[in-house]
């Protein structure tokens, strides 16, 4: 029996399973008011997914608006928030589009497929802007390194990210990996993708022009990720077989690779009017969003959707999250050329409907009308909540628990080695060696560098004419954000901004993935509100607009939320990519310069975490003007060729930065500490600091530049030798550093 519009009119009082689909009673009543009748089960499917937290941002919208209202003036911003991904002008007629998105919950349930389809989804977002995806990054958080479930989840996630990205031919150029017990039941898998396109080739998700064809192309639709729809199906159809379907999608990177090449040929041939990827909410989302942003109407015959499982019901087709699918709007004149390109790449493509000017989205199934709605009511007019929030009960006590009370170590050599081998600071090579960082041949810097750097020239036809490059970094620190979510979000931005500048790139724009607990918990909502406010304020001060991002709520186990974890991605541009600064100490005989001041700041630090299991006090102070001045020095110094190597000073302080800079190329260093207290100098996590390696003949010029831009500079010593020596404090052979640094992850995962 088909639940048609006709039948809905005839059976106005039939009970509907809106609650099982996650809808509140008032939301259901609103749908009835919009339609002037009860929704059909297909319409209910559409509204339930489109008005879900994931698709509608109903709890976060009122806060996220600040990214728009506080946005700094930016000539670079071509497409801002609200599209599939933001687009920024990177010069010479080229544009970059980038976005980070979460796939946390699926990755806990099924680590490999959850992570793989997270990569697949973000790559399609980038494709739908008209761009060629050129690289991916991933920001990962897991429970404690020695927790048994981490051994289940982490290898699967890494394999998923790796196998999907590797098979797609996208270099993985960086990211983050951190461990904390708060993520044990709720790992974070945030995937970032960046793409490049000509400035005049931006595509948008829109369906204008009555008579234009609606094409579904890519993989066929199967019963993936339709946990919700099975509720509907079983409730309406009493069919047990539809009730037990997998809730996690399964990815096919080979199809995605074909889709990429196919889409690029379609764009090149200029046969696409509008395009949208199918991600969460599948056909429901693509049709309502395309129609709402276009002429306003669309008619679709759901019976034409190619199925992998012919028993799928219309509600399931609407909600299916089958991967590797795209929807395009194509003029009747271009449809043959469109289909020919798809055929060349063996990509199935089917016309399933056309654009209309009726203002209604109408879908049929076996000649009966099963959906007839104004598309904007599903896509744009979802519920908006002003969730209550207040400071957590224990926040004041947490902040009062100052790390000054912690006993400081006498043996700084041992302290350094302990930190260097601790889970968050240990080498991540066990993970990153499973990712292809070289494919496509444009990788200039990748892990363990502070930021990934790509050459733009030769990415695709026409790009040879630019010398530019882009740099990307992601950062986030849940402990800092737990102590102060306002400052924590700013610190994440400051570090990513600094990591981009360390390569010599000018930071341009921001994307973010906001990972939090339940928005229905007023204490979590306070963390969220503070983090968004902090990030929006800091973006304004640093002059880098937010171009898009993603909110992930309900990251909690039982009633215990994760640390608030805003992950921030920053994209920068190098006018001449050949001027990029290499990672670490690149050669012996260079002067080692520390830029920025060091204060006694240990709240939320790695040292407090590792040595004492302590989290309390306040995170390091945010100095946005200092960050801005520092970036100014770094960009100018790189442009003038004054710097040979560089490294950000952050987690673990100067000690870890020096050790990592030495290990980069096996070049030792001899330094003298600038301040009075060796422990503070070595392990404090004060912000707005970097290490530089400078040829002696360039040093005076660099010092002048720092003085002019009012950035403190301290010459610490010289690179060379086979050990890291801090005069009067410690001396450790680089090989010993390396052995400790590299042993930690293999000890857990290779055994």
């Amino acid at each position, binding site marked *: 029996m088909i639940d048609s519009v006709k039948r809905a009119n005839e059976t106005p009082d039939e009970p509907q399973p809106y609650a099982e689909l996650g809808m509140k009673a008032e939301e259901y009543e609103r749908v009835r008011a919009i339609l002037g009748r009860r929704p059909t089960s297909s319409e209910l499917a559409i509204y339930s997914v489109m008005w879900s937290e994931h698709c509608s941002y109903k709890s976060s919208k009122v806060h996220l608006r600040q990214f728009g209202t506080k946005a700094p003036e930016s000539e670079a911003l071509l497409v801002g928030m609200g599209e599939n991904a933001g687009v920024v002008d990177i010069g010479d007629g080229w544009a970059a589009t980038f976005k980070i998105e979460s796939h946390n919950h699926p990755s806990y349930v099924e680590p490999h497929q959850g992570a793989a389809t997270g990569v697949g989804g973000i790559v399609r977002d980038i494709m739908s802007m008209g761009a060629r995806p050129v690289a991916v990054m991933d920001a990962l958080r897991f429970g404690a390194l020695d927790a048994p479930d981490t051994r289940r989840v982490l290898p699967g996630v890494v394999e998923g990210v790796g196998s999907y990205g590797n098979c*797609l031919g996208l270099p993985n150029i960086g990211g983050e990996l951190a461990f904390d017990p708060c993520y044990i039941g709720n790992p974070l898998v945030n995937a970032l993708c960046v793409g490049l396109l000509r400035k005049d080739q931006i595509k948008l998700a829109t369906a204008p022009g009555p008579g234009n064809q609606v094409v579904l192309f890519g993989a066929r639709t199967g019963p993936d990720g339709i946990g919700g729809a099975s509720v509907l199906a079983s409730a309406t159809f009493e069919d047990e077989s539809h009730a037990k379907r997998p809730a996690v999608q399964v990815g096919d990177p080979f199809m995605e690779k074909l889709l990429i090449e196919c889409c690029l040929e379609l764009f090149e041939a200029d046969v696409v009017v509008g395009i949208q990827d199918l991600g969460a909410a599948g056909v429901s989302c693509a049709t309502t969003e395309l129609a709402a942003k276009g002429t306003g109407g669309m008619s679709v015959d759901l019976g034409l959707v190619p199925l992998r499982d012919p028993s799928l019901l219309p509600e399931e087709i609407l909600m299916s999250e089958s991967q590797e699918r795209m929807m395009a709007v194509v003029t009747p004149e271009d449809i043959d050329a469109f289909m020919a390109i798809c055929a060349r790449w063996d990509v199935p493509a089917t016309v399933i409907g056309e654009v209309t000017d009726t203002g209604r989205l109408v879908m049929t199934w076996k000649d009966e009308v099963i959906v007839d709605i104004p598309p904007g009511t599903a896509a744009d007019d979802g519920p908006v909540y002003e969730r209550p929030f207040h400071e957590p009960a224990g926040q004041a006590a947490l902040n009062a628990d100052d790390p000054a009370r912690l006993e400081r170590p006498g043996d700084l050599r041992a302290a350094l080695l302990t930190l260097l081998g601790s889970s968050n600071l240990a080498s991540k090579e066990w993970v990153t*060696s499973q990712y292809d960082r070289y*494919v*496509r*041949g444009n990788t200039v810097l990748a892990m363990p560098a502070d930021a990934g750097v790509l050459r733009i020239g030769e990415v695709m036809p026409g790009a040879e004419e630019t010398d530019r490059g882009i740099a990307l970094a992601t950062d986030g620190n849940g402990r800092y954000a737990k102590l102060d979510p306002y400052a924590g979000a700013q610190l994440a931005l400051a570090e990513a901004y600094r990591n981009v500048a360390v390569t010599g790139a000018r930071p341009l724009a921001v994307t973010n993935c906001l990972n939090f607990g339940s928005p229905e918990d007023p204490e979590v909502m306070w963390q969220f509100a503070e983090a968004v406010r902090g990030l929006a304020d800091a973006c304004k001060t640093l002059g880098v607009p937010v171009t898009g991002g993603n909110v992930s709520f309900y990251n909690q186990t039982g009633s215990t939320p994760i640390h608030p974890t805003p992950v921030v991605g920053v994209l920068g541009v190098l006018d001449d990519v050949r001027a990029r600064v290499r990672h670490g100490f690149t050669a012996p005989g260079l002067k080692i310069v520390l830029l920025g001041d060091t204060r006694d700041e240990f709240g939320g630090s790695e040292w407090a975490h590792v040595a004492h299991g302590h989290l309390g006090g306040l995170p390091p102070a945010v100095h946005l003007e200092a960050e801005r001045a520092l970036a100014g020095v770094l960009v100018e110094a790189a442009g003038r060729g004054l710097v040979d190597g560089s490294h950000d000073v952050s987690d673990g302080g100067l000690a870890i930065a020096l050790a990592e800079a030495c290990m980069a190329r096996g070049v030792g260093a001899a330094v003298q500490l600038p301040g009075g207290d060796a422990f503070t100098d070595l392990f404090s996590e004060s912000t707005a600091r970097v290490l530089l390696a400078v040829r002696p003949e360039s040093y005076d010029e660099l010092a002048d530049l720092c003085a002019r831009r009012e950035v403190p500079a301290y010459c610490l010593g010289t690179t060379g030798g086979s050990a890291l020596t801090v005069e009067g404090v410690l001396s450790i052979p680089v090989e010993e550093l390396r052995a400790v640094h590299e042993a930690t992850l293999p000890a857990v995962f290779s055994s």
Partner: protein
Amino acid sequence: MVYRRRPPSLSETPARRSHVEGYETMGAARVGVVTFPGTLDDQDAARAVRHAGGEAVPLWHADRDLKGVDAVFLPGGFSYGDYLRCGAISRFAPLMEELIPAARAGLPVLGTCNGFQILCEAHLLPGALTRNEGLHYICRDQRVRVENAATAWTGDYASGQEILLPVKHGEGRYVADAATIGALEAGGQVVFRYLGGNPNGSMNDIAGISNEAGNIVGLMPHPEHAVEDLTGAPSVDGRGFFTSILKKFVNL
């Protein structure tokens, strides 16, 4: 079928500007770069050919046409999604129907990574490439020794020369029966050997091999990712593959 190579002629093709100093005169050699569905390193391979001064000619898996090229490069990737077995489907592509007899007749062919797997599946090279010993995909900069500098693709190296090339694969463990391994070793067909740690458990640390005639070479490492200072691996040791094959045609 007898493969007829298009005669190299400097006058026929305008000289291209080379990115590598000293190779300006090598514009004549045309190296085909094959794209299967799922091939990933084709543009990198083409770029490496161009940088050495050659002409990269795109070859499409579905065409029965080698376009008269002087040599063929089968690049890495996951052709046909590595379904069934790496390279198992690609070997049946229409283009391969032309390529296999041409290679047997002497056309120089280089296969890297997935290209090496395809050459083994097509029986142009003996043995097989199986899952890495560690069961993980591995991407790292690998020291490799050139064991035979007399093949069509290694003439610009010295025998025994140590070079640095990236490896990046999940199924690169070379295996063959004892007789085959013995014959490869005795005949100088082990062209490359891993140094400083075998990344995948290959027998005899074998990184690459050739056929008896030396025109067909397959290896797991990626020379095309080690040709520029700015990008890729921290070495330019891969350039020799491309200069070797180009010089071969200029000197004919």
